[in-house]
C-alpha cells in the first residue's frame, strides 16, 4: 500500500513536471511511478490469493450408482445414508436379478 501511494504521488509529480516543461524530470518520475504501480498491483494480487480469504468453493452432492449383476441395467441416484459399495439393493427392474451398489462418489453441482 505504501509503494502504491508513493507511485501515485510520483505520477502526479510527473504530470506536474510535464506541465512546467521539465521533460527529463517528468520522464524519470513517470518511469518510477509506473514501475512502482506495477509492483504494488502485483503484490496486491499475490496478497489477495493468500489462504484465509474468502474463496469460491465447489458445491458437491453425493451420488450412488447401482447396477444389475446380470444385465446392463445401471441407475444413478442421490446418495442415501446407509449406502455402501457392494450393498445389495433389491431387484433389477429389467431381469429381476440382484442389484448392487457399485459406486458412491461426489458430483459437482455448482460453486458458492
Amino acid at each position, binding site marked *: 500500500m505504501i509503494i502504491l501511494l508513493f507511485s501515485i504521488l510520483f505520477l502526479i*509529480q510527473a504530470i*506536474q513536471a510535464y506541465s*512546467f516543461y521539465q521533460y527529463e524530470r517528468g520522464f524519470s518520475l513517470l518511469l518510477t511511478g509506473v514501475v512502482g504501480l506495477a509492483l504494488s498491483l502485483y503484490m496486491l494480487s499475490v496478497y489477495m490469493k493468500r489462504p484465509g480469504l474468502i474463496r469460491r468453493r465447489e458445491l458437491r452432492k453425493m451420488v450412488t450408482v447401482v447396477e444389475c449383476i446380470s444385465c446392463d441395467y445401471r441407475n444413478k441416484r442421490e446418495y442415501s*445414508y446407509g*449406502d*455402501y*459399495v457392494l450393498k445389495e439393493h433389491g431387484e433389477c427392474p429389467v431381469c429381476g436379478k440382484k442389484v448392487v451398489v457399485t459406486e458412491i462418489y461426489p458430483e459437482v453441482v455448482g460453486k458458492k
Partner: protein
Amino acid sequence: MLSIQLVLSEIGVGGEGDNISTVLQIVFLTFFIVMMTYGQKIQAWMMLKNISLSVERLRRMRDEARIHAVRYLKEYSDRSDVEPILDRILQYFWIQPTSLDPTGIVGKIEHILNLRDERIREEVAAIASKANPIQISNIENVIEIGISMDQIYRIVRHFYEFGKKTKSIFIVYQLEAQLPFILQEAEALMGALTAFENCQPIGDGAGALVAARFMYGAEKHRIAKDTVYADVIIDGRTVSVIKAEGPGGNVGKPDQAIARLIEEYGRRPSIIVMVDAALKLEGEETGEVAEGVGAAIGGIGVEKFRIEEVAKKYGIPLYAVVIKQSLKEAISPMNRKIYDGVYEAIERIKRIIREKIPVGGYGIIVGVGNTVGIGQ
C-alpha cells in the same frame, strides 16, 4: 495547460524546489532507511500477519472436527460426560520405542501401536454403548481425524508463536513455505470427516475396492482382526483375496492374514499381488495405474516388514499395483476417476495372474486400504 500551471503555482507546487517535492523526497529517504534497517523484521511481521489467518483457520477446523466427533458420539451414547472424555482422547499420543538398539524394534513398535488402537477402541466402546462394530470403527476414524487436526493446529501454532517471539525471518519463512501443504492436508481431513460419519468410501479404499470386487459373491472367512479373505477362481487359478472387513472404517491386518495363510494353513502361492492407493506427482492424472514390485502398503512399516519377511522366507514374488491419487483425494470421498482406476487395476491384476500363475496354481491378492463404505 496555463490554467493548470496557475493552480499549481498557487498551491506551491511545480517549478524549481517546490514544497511537496521536498517533503516527498524526505519521506522517501526515511522510508528507504527504515526498510534497509528494519526490512527483515517488517517482512517477518507481514508474513506473521498472513500466517495468523491460517492459524485461525486451522483453529476453526480443529474445533469443527471436535464438534463433529462430539455430535457423532452422542448419537450412540447415553452418557453425560462425553465431551470431557473426548477431550482427553483427542490428546492421546504414542512414544516411539528407542532405536538405540534397533534389533526387534519392529515388534516393539507393533506392540505400542496395537496398544494405542486397543485403548482408543475400548474408550469408544465404553462411551458409545449403543453403537454396533461398524459404527464403532467409524467413530474411531472420526476421533483419529480429531486427533490429527488437534496435532496439526498445535504444531503450527507453536511455530507461529515461536516466530512471533523471536521475530526470526528463517523460522517464519519455513512455516510459510509449509503452510500450503499443511492447509491442504487439513482440508482433506475435514472432507474425510463427512465420509466416515456417513460411511462413504474414500480414495484410500481403492485397493480394498479392487479386492472387494474380486471376492464379491464368494464365501468370506475372518482370518485376522478386522480382516477377511475369500477363495475365488480366476481363469482356472485359485486365488485367495484378502481385504479389511467393511463397510466400517477398518484397515485390518493384511500382514497377519498373509502369514496365517502361508504358515498356518500351509498354502504356497506362486505370487502375492498387493494393490493400494499411491500418491501421484503433480502433473499426473488421478486414477492412473502403475505396476511394480514390492509390498504396496503404507503406515509406519510394521506390516510391510512382516509381509516382506514372509515373502523372502518362502521365496514368493511380491507384485504391486497402485492407483494414483493426490493426498487430498486419498482421504476425501472417492471420486469418479479413482473408480476408473479401480476397473483398470482389476484388468491388470487379471493379466498378472494369467502370466505368473500356472493354470491350476494358487496366488494371493491383497487389497490394502481403509475399507470405509466398501463391503465385500
